[in-house]
């Protein structure tokens, strides 16, 4: 029997790049779970993608044994949380599995937008927050200033925060010791009815779904008849265990206060939603743990195989990804321009990009993606409301009473010299100013309400470029607001290209239409004939560009008998054609469909 008072369940929270995963690695290494030789950098980021991008996509957990200065051995359960606003809900569930959070703050950068957002999230879950100042080995490090900032801005005591370098391991032992002293041990009665929180799950082709959970009350062991309280799925436990580094280690039972995994021959991650409560179906608990919600996609786009014959492959790949990612949604759709594909729903743009990259890399698919859009609520004159995810399905304007679009409340932290530029950006994106407060003399936190569809394009890039990388950004959903929206259609050689249509604020339609036409003009190669590119709203053309006809494409000089070189040239020309989409008699490069997403030119 494990002594509950010797358990510490905690997570590490930080702004992106402040060193969360590096600290996790160091802790694992220093507690002797792995030698540094066995460690690939950042053990907890399993996917290649996570390592490359330096972000954590899925929650991970690991159990480590720490022999403290008091001579006792402690069990640490470290839960690594996803580091992006797209996965906020997953983060909140991971936090709910802990008693405390180690807050990592970069000694040079100080408090950032995500630092704040994560701290508030942790406070919401009544976690004890233990600040750590990282990267003190940087020449620009100013730990004292950062300590004051943490105290002033966040309002938590930080004088005795360990000052560490996760990279070199300096003072990381202080972090371990403070975890024992400052983070409370879990509570809960091992004999009470089972109540366990699901904070992640993973599909394994041999074991079925592996459910990551925190036991709040009661005990679970092999054979326990369990039930997921929200989805209603039932099963009998086949295996329980805890998390070694990169492996699952079976054990006899998991009891209140412990973190571990359960398998029960479950076939589908949809049955084991993050946030759901597992109980014993013969001795159920009174009520589920609070905070469960079904996460819904926020951003939609069409995904098409570049090679139409790969449609079944794309479907298989999406199905496989969905096994591990219940928040990914997709359904078949057809486009006149792009053929058969899927309308896919994502938590946000990063989620979209990750799925796209995984499809391309892990499944070797060449994709054409249409402009991402949000879910609009279309209130029809007959009183019904439809959720619009594909611009092509917009009803005739005569049937529309009004439309609503999703809003977010955004927090942007920026140094004072860029406040003007960032406010300009927010205004351009139809932001409504809420407030601004100075965190310290040179930095301010600006709050805006923004339409979601204004930030899903290139807002983040624009923010970075207009603040020279100094602005940080976080947002949360804030319901729907009525808005004057229109569908902008693109006509190429007089033919409407459905895959290029999108919904846009009426006041921005002209500007967007003009930029789209300009961009497409750059992307579409010259043909034998002239090609008009038009942007239209409700059948009325509002912008136009022309791709001039190809006058000359001739290799005059071709003497000398080097025919192979000439052949290569022709082959290149032909190969280029293969990457084109035929719309009417116009060939459009696949990348044209994507390039229109980047329209901010400042």
């Amino acid at each position: 029997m494990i002594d509950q008072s010797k358990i510490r369940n905690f997570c590490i929270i930080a702004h992106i790049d402040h060193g969360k995963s590096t600290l996790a690695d160091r802790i694992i290494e220093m507690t002797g779970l792995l030698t540094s030789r066995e460690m690939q950098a950042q053990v907890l980021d399993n996917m290649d993608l996570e390592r490359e991008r330096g972000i954590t996509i899925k929650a991970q957990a690991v159990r480590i044994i720490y022999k403290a200065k008091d001579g006792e051995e402690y069990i640490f359960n470290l839960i690594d949380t996803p580091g992006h606003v797209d996965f906020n809900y997953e983060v909140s569930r991971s936090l709910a599995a802990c008693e405390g959070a180690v807050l990592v703050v970069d000694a040079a950068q100080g408090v950032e937008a995500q630092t704040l957002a994560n701290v508030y999230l942790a406070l919401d879950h009544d976690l004890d927050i233990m600040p750590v100042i990282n990267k003190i080995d940087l020449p620009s490090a100013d730990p004292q200033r950062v300590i004051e900032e943490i105290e002033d801005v966040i309002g938590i005591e930080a004088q005795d925060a360990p000052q560490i370098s996760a990279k070199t391991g300096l003072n990381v032992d202080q972090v371990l010791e403070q975890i024992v002293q400052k983070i409370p041990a879990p509570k809960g009665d091992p004999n009470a009815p089972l109540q366990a929180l699901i904070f992640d799950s993973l599909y394994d082709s041999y074991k079925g779904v592996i459910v990551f959970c925190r036991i709040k009350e009661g005990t679970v062991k092999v054979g326990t008849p369990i039930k997921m309280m929200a989805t209603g799925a039932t099963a009998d436990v086949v295996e329980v265990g805890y998390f070694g580094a990169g492996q699952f280690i079976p054990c006899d039972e998991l009891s209140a206060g412990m973190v571990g995994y359960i398998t029960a021959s479950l076939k589908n991650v949809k049955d084991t939603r993050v946030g759901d409560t597992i109980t014993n179906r013969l001795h159920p608990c009174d009520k589920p743990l609070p905070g469960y919600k079904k996460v819904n996609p926020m951003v939609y786009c069409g995904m098409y195989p570049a090679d139409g014959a790969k449609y079944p492959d794309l479907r298989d790949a999406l199905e496989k990804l969905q096994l591990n990612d219940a928040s990914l949604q997709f359904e078949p759709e057809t486009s006149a321009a792009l053929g058969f594909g899927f309308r896919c729903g994502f938590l946000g743009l990063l989620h979209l990009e990750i799925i796209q990259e995984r499809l391309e890399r892990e499944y070797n698919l060449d994709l054409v993606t249409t402009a991402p859009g949000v879910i609009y609520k279309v209130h029809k004159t007959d009183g019904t409301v439809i959720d619009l995810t594909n611009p092509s399905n917009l009803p005739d304007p005569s049937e529309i009473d009004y439309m609503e679009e999703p809003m977010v409340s955004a927090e942007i932290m920026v140094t004072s010299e860029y406040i003007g530029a960032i406010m300009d950006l927010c205004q351009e994106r139809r932001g409504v100013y809420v407030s601004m407060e100075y965190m310290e003399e040179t930095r301010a936190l600006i709050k805006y309400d923004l339409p979601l569809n204004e930030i899903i394009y290139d807002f983040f890039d624009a923010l970075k470029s207009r603040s020279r990388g100094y602005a940080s950004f976080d947002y949360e959903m804030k319901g729907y607001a009525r808005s004057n929206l229109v569908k902008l259609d693109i006509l190429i050689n007089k033919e409407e290209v459905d895959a290029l249509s999108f919904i846009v604020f009426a006041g921005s339609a002209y500007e967007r239409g003009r930029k789209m036409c300009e961009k497409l003009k750059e992307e579409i190669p010259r043909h034998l004939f002239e090609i008009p590119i038009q942007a239209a709203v409700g059948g009325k053309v509002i912008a136009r560009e022309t791709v001039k006809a190809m006058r000359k494409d001739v290799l005059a000089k071709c003497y000398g008998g080097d025919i192979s070189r000439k052949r290569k040239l022709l082959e290149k020309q032909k190969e280029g054609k293969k990457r084109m989409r035929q719309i009417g008699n116009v060939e459009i490069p696949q990348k044209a469909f994507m390039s229109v997403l980047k329209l901010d030119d400042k």
Partner: protein
Amino acid sequence: MREMEIYVHIPFCVQKCSYCDFLSMPADDDVKKQYIGRLKEEIRQMSEEYPGRPVKSVFFGGGTPSILPGSVITGIMDCIRENFQIQSGAEITIECNPGTLDVSRLTQYKKAGINRLSLGLQSADDKELKLLGRIHTYEDFLKSFDCARKCGFDNINVDVMSGLPTQKLKSWEQTLKKVTGLKPEHISAYGLIVEEGTPFWKIYGYDEETRRKGEQPLFLPSEEEERQMYAFTVEYLGKKGYERYEISNYARPGHQCIHNRGYWDRSDYLGVGLGASSMMDNCRFSNTGSMEEYLKGRTLEGEKYRLSRREQMEEFMFLGMRMTEGISRTDFLKAFQVTVDFVYGDILKKLEQEGLVRDEKGRICLTDRGIDVSNYVFSQFLMDEEE
């Protein structure tokens, strides 16, 4: 025995022109001497590999072959004659640059049996010549031309180029007027292509994207001006009695270049010398481009590549259609035992609808518009690997 052609590459010049991307360089006498030795050795070796084949043309290209003393060219010709069967009446051409020609050279060429000269004039405007990095003036060219006629050369080609930096339609008209006034038998009128790796590329270079969009870099004629020059060329040379028989080649009746035609109608040809390409019995191969390697006797670069039937068909089309007379349906059938429509029916129909090719008395050829966009047309004849 199938006829064949011989190409001899002389990779030397006085000074490399700024637009030139052929294999050529200034070199000292020692290298030249070694090179000629190796060249003759290669000719002997190749004659053992391809014995007894009648030769219908020989072409000395470069570089500037006329940079070599007349006796050296005579020596190479002797070597070729000793090892190959040169047909009587074979066309034997040498490329010459104005400024490197004199009576002694021309007399020796004549003695060696050379019966055709190709003079690289490029422009009749001295300012344009200077920009091209040419070593001669128009006056130098006139002297060379006059001298050639006096030495009895009655088959002369003049190379000219349009689309040059700072060139205007007026100066192009002048160039063509002056050249036709001299009544050469043959005119090659090329459009300048700024090739990667040349000094021109650095000055006027522009990427694929820019070119695709039809934008021109500074100093080069605009697309519109280029069009006008081009249209003028076709019309004016036609009026002066020069028939266009290939995209860039014009000749008075009976003076088409036999050697160059060989490339388009897929005659066998053997290239000797640095970097020279060959096609013999449907195998393509080329020599090393490294002088060091070549002088050491390691001639071939890579291996001989046997063209598949598919590739032969593709070449038949995209090479044959460079000639204004196009390709013959009967020849295609004879070569491949299948009709051209069986292989290319759909493509030809589409190209005909686009107004790019036309069918004429059993031949298929490019229309004027088809010539303009011939790369597009030719690329259509490439088949997918698996087909």
